[in-house]
């Protein structure tokens, strides 16, 4: 029991970060992480011991997120972004406009692109691991990553144009 906690707990901060980036709501993010941990505990014996624990946990969490998101869509429940107020990004920097709130821009990406950028760019999963977590062919990861970043750039760019127009 104690060693299970010792094994799992080091991964919780990253699971919370990933969940928050997906949901942008602290409570809902912790709900998702809690469900992830419960599922991990209930399936602990089914886990292939040689597999990577971190990747396994992220796979569970991502799958839970996707199935819930589908459920919400079926029910027609709008997914509220209750944290539309953005964490402070210093606006005085030269680069502030082009990177201004990438997290918010990320919200406008499809879930798969969003997850890919987070798993690779924030959680430091290898390309192969990210592909496995997201259930995509390994050969397509790089092109998908490239497309996701292209799209993110254009969203940020659009945001910047709007912002500049508003400033004028």
């Amino acid at each position, binding site marked *: 029991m104690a060693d299970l906690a010792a094994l799992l707990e080091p991964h919780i901060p990253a699971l*919370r970060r990933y969940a928050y980036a997906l949901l942008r709501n602290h409570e809902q993010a912790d709900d998702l992480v809690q469900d992830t941990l419960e599922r991990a505990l209930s399936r602990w014996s089914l886990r292939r011991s040689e597999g990577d624990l971190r990747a396994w946990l992220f796979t569970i969490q991502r799958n839970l997120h996707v199935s819930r998101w589908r459920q919400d869509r079926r029910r027609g429940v709008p997914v509220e972004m209750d944290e539309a107020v953005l964490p402070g990004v210093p606006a005085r920097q030269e680069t502030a406009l082009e990177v201004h709130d990438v997290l918010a821009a990320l919200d406008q990406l499809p879930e798969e692109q969003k997850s890919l950028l987070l798993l690779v760019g924030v959680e430091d999963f290898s390309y192969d691991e990210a592909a496995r977590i997201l259930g995509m062919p390994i050969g397509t990861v790089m092109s998908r990553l490239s497309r996701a970043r292209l799209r993110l750039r254009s969203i940020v760019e659009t945001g910047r144009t709007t912002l500049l127009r508003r400033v004028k």
Partner: protein
Amino acid sequence: MTGKDAAIREEDLQAYVDGRASGERLAEIEAYLAQHPEERERVALEHRQRAALRGQLENKAAEPIPPRLWITNIQAARRRRWGWRLGAAAAGLLLFTGGIGTGWIAANRMEMASGQPTSGTTAVAENASLAYRTFVVEVAHPVEVDAQHQAHLLQWLSRRLGKPLVAPDLTSFGYRLMGGRLLPSGSGAAAQLMYDDPTGKRLTVYVRAAEGSETAFRFQHEGETSTFAWIDRGFGFAVTGALQRDELLPIAEAVYHGLSGESPAVKKD
């Protein structure tokens, strides 16, 4: 795209953005970017956005883990649910839990699944054993009120039980009072006092109203847990611990004398 440039592909640039290009390949990519200012700028921008995203999420991962995500708490909640199913199936014990701490809303029916009424002591022993298994593993909140507030604890539990309660002194067995908690039971409230020894081994004394006139000790062994239960003047008592029968018996006798004997009300530490 000719010559060396032809070798550089989008995936190389993505790896460069992620800082995962290395060695000779890295040098080739850098040489390529030196020749292609537009690409260079684009790659640099993607790299800055990547860094910005990490920066925005940095604090989230630095937050302390909230108690509801502590593995021990999730395990305890799972055990309570499991206990519910087990209890409902095996003993007709209906138990619903929510939250940690006072979150017990329990009702029990003293009937076996077969419809055979169980004796009062058996039900007390089962309740006590379940409560033991639930809270003895609790790391964060093993007790609601700790032994430092013993007077308050006993007064509170006594009032809720409708019986003056004393905390039996088990120091001669090496057990020290940790504190106690109030639990619901079918007919009213139940009290659980928890003790531990220097090695962290825990045992509990459980008290609730109970019908019946048995006064004999009833022994029950479940997994690693042993329980002695008895009924005395309208109240059921149980002593539960991860101990062998012979180890637990003298403790149960001491509790019997200290708790339901003729000389109560002496407050002990």
